């Protein structure tokens, strides 16, 4: 099986103070740590488990700047066979559609059985890229996969629908599957494992290698433009309890009691 998995490096903003920079279009990135997007980590693991069962090859791809190579190296350390870094100054500022154009150009004509994505990214959270690529490559797709098995030229996928239900589908390969968290237990990547793959040269493809028109991608090709970032209005926020821990908890108990919680 030839499996491709598209991954993204994202900033962990869950426990840092967020500040919007002077351009109003980006965050001040001083204290961010970066890692593979959580959903994508599950997608890599899903790809590796299929390879271990059926044989074949797993290739990890990312679109991004030089620093983004670290998620490809991480994917190699997990067990991916190859990596491809799609990087070019004129990719900068691409919207999801531009990223999908770049990925589709890189994948076109490749022998491909299964193309995996994480369902959404922790930063943008739009969940578009996988579907765009499926549309551009005219492949069948299932999103939000919670299990994935392959038998011959058919994949059996269960996926989340509304109301806590799941549905089971069959897909003719080649196909696109976007993976939900919790589908598996992604293997641990040790520092030693990363060091082992540090010498591997990861090929880089740019706009010319992919046969793309530079106006199709990057900020100039973006169909959806970011106009500004802003902090959510604090209009209807919670009554914040302050003081010593004892005072806070006493106030909370009074409020719980008033609202019938004790």
């Amino acid at each position: 099986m030839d499996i491709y998995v598209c991954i993204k490096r994202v900033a962990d903003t869950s426990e840092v103070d967020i500040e919007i920079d002077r351009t109003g279009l980006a965050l001040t990135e001083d204290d961010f740590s970066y890692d593979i997007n959580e959903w994508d980590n599950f997608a890599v693991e899903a790809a590796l488990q299929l390879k271990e069962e059926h044989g074949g090859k797993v290739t990890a791809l990312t679109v991004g700047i030089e620093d983004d190579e670290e998620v490809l190296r991480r994917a190699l350390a997990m067990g991916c066979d190859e990596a491809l870094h799609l990087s070019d100054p004129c990719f900068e500022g691409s919207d999801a559609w531009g990223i999908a154009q770049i990925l589709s150009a890189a994948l076109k004509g490749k022998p491909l059985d299964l193309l995996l994505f994480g369902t959404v990214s922790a930063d943008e959270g739009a969940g578009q890229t996988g579907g765009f690529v499926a549309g551009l490559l005219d492949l069948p797709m299932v999103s939000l996969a919670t299990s994935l098995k392959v038998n011959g030229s058919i994949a059996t996928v269960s996926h989340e629908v509304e109301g806590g239900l799941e549905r089971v589908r069959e897909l003719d390969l080649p196909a696109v599957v976007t993976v939900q968290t919790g589908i598996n237990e992604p293997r641990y990547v040790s520092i030693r494992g990363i060091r082992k793959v540090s010498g591997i040269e990861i090929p880089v493809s740019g706009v010319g290698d992919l046969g793309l028109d530079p106006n199709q991608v990057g900020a100039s090709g973006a169909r959806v433009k970011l106009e500004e970032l802003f902090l959510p209005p604090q209009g209807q926020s919670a009554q914040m309890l302050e003081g010593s821990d004892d005072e806070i908890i006493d106030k909370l108990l009074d409020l719980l009691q008033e609202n019938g919680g004790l």
Partner: protein
Amino acid sequence: MRDILVLIEDLIDAPAELAAAARCFGDVQTTAFVSGGTESEHQMLAGLFDCVKVAPAASDANWCAEFLCAQILPLLDSMQPHLVLMHHTNNGLDLAPLLAAKSDRPMLADCISLESRENGVSAVRTVFGGKVHARISATDSATGYFATVRSGAFSMPEDTATKSGSIVALPLIETAPRRRFIETITPEAGAVDITQSEILVAVGRGIDDEDNMEIVEELADALGAELACTRPVVDKGWLEKSRQVGTSGLTVKPKIYLTVGVSGSFQHLGGIKGGPFMVAINQDAAAPIFAAADVGIVGDLFDLVPLLEEKIRERKG
């Protein structure tokens, strides 16, 4: 007059929200697309939209993005609507990007507000887990636009169902689907039914480790509450799926909802109905949960939760 095509899902009963979202575009001609459904459902839609186009149901009567694309694409060709609208739900994630790509329309995903511009569409959406809002826009598209909207973000005024739209049957477009429905799985019922609980203690990723679950179990016990949780807690196997609240889990209607280490993603908040008295304990002052809660405490949950439990037991005697 501009045309807006609204795509109605099979499981979500919120077409009025889409009608409300369409109103952001002023005086427009609205058409609802639905596959299958009953006559009374079509009548209900006709009260909300100027026209209802009814495509045959998929042979397996289930949401199938490939089947729906085949039914909707010819309609887009003939109608050339200014905008296609649907909800950013699990079904929306499945269909919208695929259809936007196939119809070559710029897509604005998961919008919480929409605005018509002279030369396009602008929207506000949340990024970085809800901590930041982004204003985005798409302009000068020759093919029209596609937007998905967050459930609950648009509400309809009282005068809702006043239209008497026409109902038109669409012919079946035959497909040889490369994606086929096998079965629907209903999750196994858990030992407790949290949808019936009046008090819930909901635990999120902030609890950090399975060993720490004990402190929230003790708190729930002291309060006489059941434990609920967010998706990451189920993913890690710390609690069973039957305790997950959210759009991919259960919908609950408690009187008191006390969250511990819950950031407040819209997927989680989407499962809390009935306007409970909501308390949030989280160490991140910027967590979106504080915009949804009635009472918030920023602090170390490992100090606060055991103290709360102790004081509850004292007060209850």
